[in-house]
């Protein structure tokens, strides 16, 4: 007797089952579907008179109390680890390039000098550290928004996007908790603080380019999954 192979309609019933159990993101559904379908086919091979619904229920029971969660957790953990490695590689590539080191030093020198000039010309409010932190948060937020729009076909809940954008959440945290703006410093210290913030802003730009390159790679790596999802209309 031929082994049972689920057809497209039956696969859609399985997809509906997976979604009803809380896993709706298309990449995650695609990840679970094959293993689940194999189990259902096995059940129907062992008991030819078993209905699809009964085979679904039995196959899902075989996954245990954790259900599909182990598959999803392992998948998300793999993505995070894979793209963390790619991201670090991209960041190293950029930071190790002598041009960026020179640019960073020039920015540092410019801001340091600018502070003293601003002091002498009574326009230090344009370099006020409180405002710069707010500007940094704004720039960071807009850059993340740009990335999410650029790869909008993924969606923010996509596990590849979550794995990559999650890399930078500590940066936003640091910006928000930056203690420098809570104190009034002397002129030289303020100048150094502004310089450090300016270098940090430049570093954020570098991180943005590393994130962008990593997301592009993630997008390319998952082309086969995207093509598959279009074909099954998941």
């Amino acid at each position, binding site marked *: 007797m031929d082994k049972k192979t689920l057809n497209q309609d039956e*696969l859609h019933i399985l997809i509906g089952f997976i979604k009803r159990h809380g896993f709706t993101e298309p990449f995650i559904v695609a990840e679970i579907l*094959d293993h689940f379908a194999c189990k259902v086919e096995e059940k129907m091979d062992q008991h030819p008179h078993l209905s699809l619904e009964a085979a679904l229920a039995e196959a899902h029971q075989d996954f*245990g109390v*954790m259900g599909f969660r182990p598959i999803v957790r*392992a998948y998300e953990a793999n993505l995070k680890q894979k793209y963390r490695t790619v991201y670090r590689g991209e960041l190293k590539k950029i930071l190790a390039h002598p041009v960026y080191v020179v640019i960073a030093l020039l920015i540092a020198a410019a801001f340091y000098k600018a502070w003293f000039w601003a002091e002498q010309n009574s326009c230090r409010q344009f370099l006020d550290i409180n405002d710069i932190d707010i500007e940094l948060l704004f720039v960071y937020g807009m850059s993340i928004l740009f990335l999410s729009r650029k790869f909008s076909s993924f969606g923010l809940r996509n596990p590849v996007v979550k794995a990559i954008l999650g890399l930078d959440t500590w940066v936003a945290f640091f910006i928000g908790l930056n203690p420098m703006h809570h104190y009034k410093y002397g002129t030289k210290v303020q100048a150094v603080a502004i310089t450090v913030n300016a270098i940090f802003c430049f570093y954020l730009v570098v991180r943005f380019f590393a994130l962008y390159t990593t997301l592009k790679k993630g997008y390319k790596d998952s082309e086969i*999954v995207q093509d598959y999802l279009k*074909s099954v209309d998941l």
Partner: protein
Amino acid sequence: MLSVEPNPVIKGSLTVIILKLLEENSRMYGYEMTRAVRDVTKNKMDITEAALYPALHKLLEEGLLETTSEVVDGRMRKYYSLTKKGKKETVSKINALKDAIGSLQLILNSNLSNG
């Protein structure tokens, strides 16, 4: 049937079981691995998904496995295969497990009473 998940001895050997399976087959998918273990042990041992996928993730993280995806029978199938590093380490890990099992058997088969 012995389920891999609750048995700590077998659970600790799961990564070696996976490496051994992939050493003998150029590539396998998750369900195929669970079925292979059941078939070889004549249904005495069953690898649960809760045990299998974390073990596969660990091996991927260590760089011993790599994955490729293909559309098969209308669904995305992820195949696992050994990397170069994985092929080297499989031999040493299997030998280490065989040694450990040999030592255990010596202990279990001998008379350990005092006096």
